[in-house]
């Protein structure tokens, strides 16, 4: 069965510091991968998605970036964090094999607090 991991679970960082959040998926190959952010009282917002190694697309302009160095690894980064980057970051995957029946499965998330 497939599992998705995220770490760290919680992170407190000062403004201006760098960020690296990691997501890995097990039990599947060549998945579609996604990064979402959930701000308090709001729904999930898609930040980045990837259909393969080195292929990243951004949904919203911001000071975050994403990379996919390996098939099942997805990394969210920032060079300098802003207060507004605080939130709950969720990674998700889907099989990428059935265009009209894709289901996304979510990881446990990372809660980021920027002070």
């Amino acid at each position, binding site marked *: 069965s497939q599992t998705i991991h995220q770490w760290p679970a919680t992170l407190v960082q000062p403004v201006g510091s760098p960020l690296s959040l990691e997501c890995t998926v097990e039990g599947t190959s060549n998945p*579609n991968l*996604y990064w979402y952010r959930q701000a308090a*009282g*709001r*729904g*999930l*917002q*898609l930040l980045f*998605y990837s*259909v393969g190694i080195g292929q990243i697309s951004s*949904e919203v302009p911001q000071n975050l970036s994403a990379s996919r160095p390996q098939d099942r690894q997805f990394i969210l980064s920032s060079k300098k964090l802003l207060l507004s980057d605080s939130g709950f970051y*969720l990674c998700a995957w*889907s*099989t*990428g*094999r*059935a*265009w*009209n*029946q*894709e*289901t*996304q*499965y*979510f*990881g*446990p*998330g990372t809660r980021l607090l920027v002070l």
Partner: protein
Amino acid sequence: AQSVSQHNHHVILSEAASLELGCNYSYGGTVNLFWYVQYPGQHLQLLLKYFSGDPLVKGIKGFEAEFIKSKFSFNLRKPSVQWSDTAEYFCAVNALRGSTLGRLYFGRGTQLTVWP
């Protein structure tokens, strides 16, 4: 851009009460529809989904949802809630455009609190 509206921000019920959470979306084409649930301290889990066929879909833990295309709605229902149903519920829509990329659009979520 597509949008998903969940009308109730916070719903408070007593155990055994019936539940209906509203979800409306704005997209005129073919959609896949989802309800996700996030229990306290747990990650987001799939509750049920609609791809095609019977517009009444059943999910886990006695939940069901009905897709009404003419109303652009996908309301979640449960005839009798339990204290363990306390959670946040998210409606999500994938506007199909022939790509395997599932761009999910989420509603803001509804916090359900069930009193024992």
